[in-house]
């Protein structure tokens, strides 16, 4: 295991599998009446959230607490960054406090690398701009792997706002690494320019894109996307690229419907789909906790 987890590429296939296997054990712990284990006792985890986040931060924080780590929080609004202190200076100050693992989220791609250059501990990327979000990819992989036992040969269809999504980038890397076939479905204005070299199929019709899918993943339509004029409006988007109630009839019983959350009901996914028996959206949240515990474990063990 390497010292940092900044992109999915930082993990070999066997490391990936090891995180999944260990995640299963941690998930079991989460079902016990007493959910705390001593694995990270005496370790300090710094949560460096330069960009607002509720769910991801909560998940990391709870994962750390379940493993008995000490936590320090650093958020941009309450920091001296407002006074134009550079990231480097901020991080060096924190490092002087002997923090073991830094969980970093920032709106600019590449910030976790800057952090990594100036600390002695490990960095976990909790999302940097549109670049990467490896822990989301790991929990997504875990959710699929737990159900199917493998990703090899599975058809995974991702529907939604792909162009600036760090989730998709990391998911695609992880899914392909583990042998799945990936189809993406979005208006052409929301496709990344280099889509032809990503190794995925593109389909502009949701109906066709999900035809043989084992996994269907919806993505949040970000408000900024509409403001940037890449789609006309939510009504048309929902009509053509929403996961609508009509799809339910055509799905085979084993299909998983996933979404990284938070969901916009009636835009990228209808409530009937999000709440259907196919949906594992809430399961993903539990798996996020288990896999983040596993990631901490692997970084400390390294």
């Amino acid at each position, binding site marked *: 295991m390497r010292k940092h987890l900044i992109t999915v590429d930082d993990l070999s296939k066997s490391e990936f599998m090891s995180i999944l296997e260990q995640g299963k054990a941690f998930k079991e712990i989460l079902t016990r009446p007493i959910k705390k284990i001593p694995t990270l006792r005496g370790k300090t985890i710094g949560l460096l959230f330069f960009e607002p986040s509720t769910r991801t931060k909560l998940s990391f924080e709870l994962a750390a607490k379940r493993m008995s780590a000490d936590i320090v929080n650093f958020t941009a609004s309450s920091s001296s960054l407002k006074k134009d202190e550079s990231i480097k200076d901020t991080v060096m100050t924190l490092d002087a406090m002997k923090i073991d693992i830094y969980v970093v989220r920032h709106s600019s791609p590449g910030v976790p690398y800057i952090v990594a250059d100036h600390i002695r501990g490990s960095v976990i990327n909790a999302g940097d701009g549109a670049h990467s979000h490896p822990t989301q990819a790991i929990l997504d992989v875990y959710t699929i792997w737990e159900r199917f036992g493998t990703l090899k040969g599975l058809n995974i269809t991702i529907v939604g706002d792909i162009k600036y999504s760090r989730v998709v980038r990391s998911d695609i890397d992880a899914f392909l690494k583990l042998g799945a076939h990936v189809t993406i479905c979005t208006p052409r*204005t929301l496709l990344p320019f280099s889509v032809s070299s990503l190794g995925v199929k593109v389909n502009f019709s949701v109906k066709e894109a999900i035809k043989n899918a084992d996994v269907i993943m919806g993505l949040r339509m970000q408000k900024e996307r509409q403001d940037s004029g*890449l789609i*006309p409006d939510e009504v048309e988007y929902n009509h053509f690229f929403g996961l609508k109630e009509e799809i339910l009839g055509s799905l085979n019983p084993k299909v998983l419907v996933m979404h990284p959350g938070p969901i916009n009901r009636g835009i990228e996914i209808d409530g009937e789909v999000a709440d259907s028996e196919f949906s594992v959206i809430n399961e993903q949240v539990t798996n996020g906790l288990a896999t983040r515990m596993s990631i901490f474990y692997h970084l400390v063990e390294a």
Partner: protein
Amino acid sequence: MKRYIFRNGMVLDAPKGFAKKDFAVLDNGKITFKNIPDRGAIEIDISGSYVIPSLFDLHTHIRCPGQEYKEDFEHVTRAAVAGGFTELCSMPNTKPVADNEAIIDYIILEGERYGRCRIHPFGSLTVGLQGEKLARMGLMKNKGAVGVTDDGMCIQDTSLMMKAMEYAHTFGLFIMDHAEDNYLKKGGFLNEGLVADKLGLKGIPEISETIIIKRDIEISRYLNIPVHITHVSSKRGAELIMNAKKEGVKITFDITPHHLSFNEEACLGFNTNFKINPPLRTEKDRKFLIGLVREGKVDCLATDHAPHAKFEKEYPFDGAPFGVSNLDTALSLLYETLTIKEKIPFEKWVGLFGNAPRKLLKMQEKALKENAVANFAVFDKNLEWKVTEKTLYSKGKNTPLLGRKLKGKVSFTFYEGARVYPFGEK
């Protein structure tokens, strides 16, 4: 429905050309060459007439809804079939703009109501043709829009044009552009050149067209998305497109009857019916465009039928609106220009007004063959007629041909098996 027998006509059997054949239209609306009935049919001798698949116009300003004082469904569909057209593509600059599925639906249904011809609406690329926000192209396509364009309001923001093309391409929509740089065109009324100077009117430079053609070529190449340039008016513009085609860029274009028939000198008498956008260019440009038709290098023809109320064209040249009423006279005028004057055989170009645009839009082509549903026009090449306000069926009488005699006229039009022209009892 009545049965018809047409005798001695020259029937177009593309691509072989015309052949003299008798044929009938049966009760079921289908054409037969083999089973011509002995009786119970109206027999018509059409010696000296051509029979062609009915015409298709890629570019019609139907003006409705919203500007019924210029043109309405009743008049535009009459003018169409009197001119041999059974399919029209309506432009989105109606009031309200055809930028949403409800207007598209309305235009199709209203067009159907008259039962003479089909209207294929184009939706706009941007909301209100404002060049700011993408229109609901997907929902418009679902309701029957065949293409998208901000015709007459060319998108100036290159980044937005790219987004609009990418978005339209998501739904496989045909993308058409009226190539015009607003800044270069601003305040101009006719081609920039000798005539404009002489008349004391500000000109519209050729580059206002070519610079956007060049831009669209680059966008099309970069995104690998087809684009169609409508009413190309200049030699330079056409040359740019020819060169781009050689490089493999998926670009197509059309030319109008007026750009093939007139040049800027027509404006010398301040006749506002020659005030057209893009403007009539020089004789050199016109000759070059004719050469392209002769060489079979034009993708299709389009009327850019732009009817206006009489009073509007009675304003001074700088105040009158752009546009010419075209549907009634397009085929006759082109017959005069291309076949009588330029000696280009009818069969060499008439398809450019029929199956060529159908092909561009991936629609079913019409053919004069056994058992085909009757969708054809009979063009009497010897029939002389005078263009007057009364002989025009369009509400827009704004054609420079008023008072002129033309040789050759559509005498019958059949649409989906029924006679739709001449009007009256079928």
